[in-house]
């Protein structure tokens, strides 16, 4: 089974983020592979192991530093990587990224495209399904379990609103993963050494046959006007002491201050 995994390098959201004049303060930012993408890589590696044949190709669109995210995935065990590197993509939204990825992928052969259910920076979760539409492929989003996998067919569990939806999927297809699917492996030292020798192809917009009017700022459909601090929740009242007392104090507040049963 030949699998493409879509990777995005994102701002490390575990760190403190500061906003000034409607934008993030760049100073002190750190960039990491989006954690849902690690789940997707792990899923791809396990699928190839299960089926017993095939290879895992990582793809990203991003600046120079995004190659670090690809190297990390190669160190986990992926076979090769493609880095689409072109400033024409700057300012892309999900739609424009999906267009670019579709252009790259329309000439490639694969059984499955895997991606994280959303990227950790935008938290939008649009790109995989938009790509599926542009490629004319079926999609299954937010999977929590791979029940069966064989050439041409998979049975997946998708986390739906009212339970797990058991889905019979005919390949090729686009599948996005929930992080409950697996626990991504850590790269071994050997893996890290091997990753340096694995093939990484760098391509610009022209090399993928892309059109500058369809990507970046000219191709995007949506735009971010500015970034704002979330309205900070004020820490409220905290009670310590015997459970009998503190419970009654809080119930009193619920009734008389918050009036939740009014």
């Amino acid at each position: 089974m030949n699998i493409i995994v879509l990777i995005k390098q994102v701002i490390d959201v575990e760190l403190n983020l500061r906003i000034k004049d409607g934008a993030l303060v760049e100073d002190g930012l750190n960039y990491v592979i989006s954690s849902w993408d690690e789940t997707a890589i792990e899923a791809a590696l396990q699928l190839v192991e299960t089926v017993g044949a095939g290879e895992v190709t990582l793809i990203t669109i991003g600046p120079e530093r995004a190659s670090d995210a690809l190297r990390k995935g190669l160190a986990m065990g992926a076979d090769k990587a493609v880095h689409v590197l072109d400033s024409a993509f700057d300012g892309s939204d999900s739609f424009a990224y999906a267009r670019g990825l579709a252009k790259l992928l329309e000439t490639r052969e694969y059984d499955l495209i895997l991606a994280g259910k959303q990227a950790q920076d935008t938290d939008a979760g649009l790109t995989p399904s938009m790509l599926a539409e542009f490629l004319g492929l079926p999609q299954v989003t937010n999977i929590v379990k791979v029940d069966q996998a064989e050439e041409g067919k998979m049975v997946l569990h998708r986390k739906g609103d009212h339970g797990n939806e058991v889905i019979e999927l005919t390949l090729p297809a686009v599948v996005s993963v929930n992080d409950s699917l697996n626990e991504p492996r850590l790269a071994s030292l050997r893996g890290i050494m091997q990753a340096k020798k694995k093939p990484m192809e760098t391509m610009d917009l022209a090399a993928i046959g892309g059109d500058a009017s369809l990507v970046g700022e000219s191709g995007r459909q949506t735009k971010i006007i500015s970034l704002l601090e979330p309205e900070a929740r004020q820490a409220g009242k905290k009670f310590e002491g015997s459970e009998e007392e503190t419970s009654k104090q809080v119930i009193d507040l619920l009734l008389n201050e918050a009036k939740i049963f009014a």
Partner: protein
Amino acid sequence: MAKILVVAEVKGTEIKKPTLELLSHAKSLNIDTEAVLIGDGVSEQAGILAGYGARKVYLADDSSLGLYNTASSTALVLDAVKQSEASQVWLSASELGRDLTPRVAARLGVGALTDLTKLEVDGDEITAYRPSMSTKVIQKCGFAKEGIRVLCIRAGAFDAADAEPATADVVNLSLPEQDIRALVKEIVTESTGEVDLQEAEIVVSVGRGVKGPEGVDFVRPLAQVLGAAYGSSRAVCDAGWAPHTAQVGQTGKVVAPDVYFAIGISGAIQHLAGMSGSKLIIAINKDPDAPIFKVADYGIVGDLFKVVPILIEEFKKIKEA
């Protein structure tokens, strides 16, 4: 002229509350609003949608549509968009809505804005607000080009109004003919028929502090006495103590109820991202430094196994009074 098409969602044959919130808000904006209703045995619900402001309902009611599938719903919504000539499509940010939104938008050749918590609408000029980066940053965003506006809006962003008696003008959609390559065979319901997390006015959630499946059962009566939905942190779901459908958080369900009880939940950022929109938060945790206390309106530092029985007892008395 702006016109909104609301994609209705059902649980079984009942319209879900977030759909009513979308209709109510559209009505309050005085924008012509219609709805598309897809399901099995849902025809009678068209009147409900009309009662909340849908002037026309595009209906697809068929035994093949009882379980959501992306391909059929995309084709049906597209058909409704075309017939209604809507300039905006509004969906709920449920698991269904998140799956359907990008597919519908891409087929319409436009972008989409998702997980919106606030919206400013001036005709088809949209300014929207959405949390990103684990809710550490709010994006103020909009559209960069002309075209149909596809918006996916979180439950609780708007209030549902009261219904007014109305009769729906129903248009039957014809079933799309297509080969379904991702076929939903069944739903493995882990949920227990309790109150739906995204519909609930009160949510009680438990975290690792309950120590095991027995602890999950120990706290459950609190949810029952409050008529609350019962949720949990990711750790509890991953440990198998609670079903994954109960997970509240960024990768689970994002909830914004009137009251949220966080019991034995430390408050990892992914969890906070899923519940910090709640109007009132009550936290119970042994650790006085647990991050959950930074967002809690009322916090009890103490042993949940002592606090919860007291709460159950007191709430019972209040309910019976």
